[in-house]
């Protein structure tokens, strides 16, 4: 249940834990991590299963990547934070897994995004990450607060 503790702190701090809503203006992304429900714990767990099956062979079990394979933590956040999540979802959908691009279902790809968010310190919420571009376009890959860096 990684991330849930942060969700509670952030949510309680904002007094909005039971009223998480999806707002999604890119300009608001810095605050978005504290107010948006990105994914559920169950969804990220499904994503982890998919990740270990299809992604870990290249990106590693801990998402650390390798010399010739980009990590999915650290620099990854620099590369994607501020971008709307439909772009990451699209990229994974079309380009991954590298050895068989486009092989996974939209639901699996959304689960993977949820797992990646969790592994980068984004807290779980009560709403599953959607698996459509239209919905994801309203959500932004958040910046990660210092206390959540993994």
């Amino acid at each position, binding site marked *: 249940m990684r991330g849930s503790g942060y969700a509670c702190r952030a949510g309680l701090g904002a007094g909005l834990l039971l009223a998480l809503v999806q707002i999604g203006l890119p300009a608001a992304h810095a605050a978005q991590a504290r107010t948006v429900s990105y994914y559920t714990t169950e969804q990220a767990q499904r994503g982890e299963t998919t990740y270990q099956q299809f992604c870990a062979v*290249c990106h590693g079990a801990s998402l650390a990547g390798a*010399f010739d*394979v*980009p990590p999915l933590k650290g620099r990854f956040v620099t*590369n994607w934070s501020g971008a709307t999540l439909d772009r990451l979802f699209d*990229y994974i959908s079309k380009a991954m897994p*590298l*050895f068989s691009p486009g092989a996974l279902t939209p639901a699996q790809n959304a689960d993977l995004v949820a797992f990646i968010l969790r592994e980068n310190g984004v807290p779980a919420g009560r709403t599953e990450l959607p698996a459509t571009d239209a919905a994801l376009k309203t959500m932004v890959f958040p910046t990660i607060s210092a206390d959540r860096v993994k």
Partner: protein
Amino acid sequence: MLVRWHWRGQMQKGWNLTGFDDNQKIRRLRLKRRDLFAGSLAFGAVGARGMWNSVPAAAAALQRTAVGGTVPRLVPMRAHADQITDIKVCLRPFRPAGPRLDVERVGDKVVIHNYGHGGSGWSLSWGSADIAVGKAASLSPRRIAVVGCGVIGLTSALSAQRAGFEVTIYTRDMLPHTRSVRANGSWTPDSRIALTAPAGPQFADVWEQMARYSWKTYRDYLGLPGNPIDFRDNYTLSDTPFEEGPEPEGRTGPGDYASTGMPRATSEFATYGDRIRDIIPAPELLASQDNPFPVAYAQRAPMMMFNFGAYGHLLLSEFYQAGGKIVIREFHTPADMKSIAEPVIINCPGYAARDLWGDRTLIPVRGQTAWLPPQPDVMYGVEYKGAAALSKSDGLMIQAVDLNNVGEMEGVGNSFEHADRAEAEKAIAVFENLFARFPAGRG
């Protein structure tokens, strides 16, 4: 030299991901050796028209042999699987129509594409960069952006600087993390550069322009400290005569690119090497008394190669010294180009263009090289039994070439970017066995 190109073209395709039993292996290797060299001489049939269509054909017809005593004492290669220090896998960005060099507008930015050079990126880089920079210059910008920092991006950036522009490179990765440095690093200007039909006859002229321009530019880097660019004598060995015969079809399925959207046979791939044979050293046969190898037949040709470490660092140094700047940035969609400050962008993402620009004509062609410790006293390369070895400043490079007998089709459509150690060990075993019997008795 063309025998090497042809062979190199096959060299860069030998990625055996499927096992086969020993009988099959022996049969295929036998076929391969015959077909390989026969293939490289096949164009000689055109000699009936009073001309040779390839350098090896001409050399074979002329029966030119190396002057006696010009084969130096060769230090044997130490080729053993337990000496592997690295295995690199690359995905060649192959486009059936040839590299993308057109101009596109994205918002108020002008994007000049320069990607999709297949197995010829290193070889054609300077010439391709010159074309891209020429298009950029016609727009008279003061500043130019280059996206990507592989060999195409770096040479584009340096060419733009030399043309007087201020240049910033935007890239996700720097050397040695770009796919460029996972190549074998030798002069292979028409290795999976295009398919003959989709590229059309006009691309042959563009190819020749790029190849000649690159060749001359590389000559400027010869003899420098660290030998960023160098030549090696390359020996092609065979147990059977380098004789003529039908070119292997190298077919992997029915149809062709036009009907299936994927090339299906080696014969679909373009070969342009003859167009520059006037500047490329031709191969010569070794007389049996001069042949130090324990095989019946050997050819020798000088071959240009690129030492990644020395050359890569030199290019980067030149870029910085000329005031160039590098920004680490990952682009997710073409629309992201609008965030670049410079008005003109030379786009050099390599294989990443497939997803960044949605270029589905970009086909991955997997290639793999194994690297053993540098052996600076070994100053040559060898090609034998479907494998190649080349001594470079950053290691002894050994490559499986042609174990599946499908010619240029090997690795086409394969985007599995993982090391196949078994393949590497098979290739190394070819040379381990060869040099266990080395040198042959002379005279």
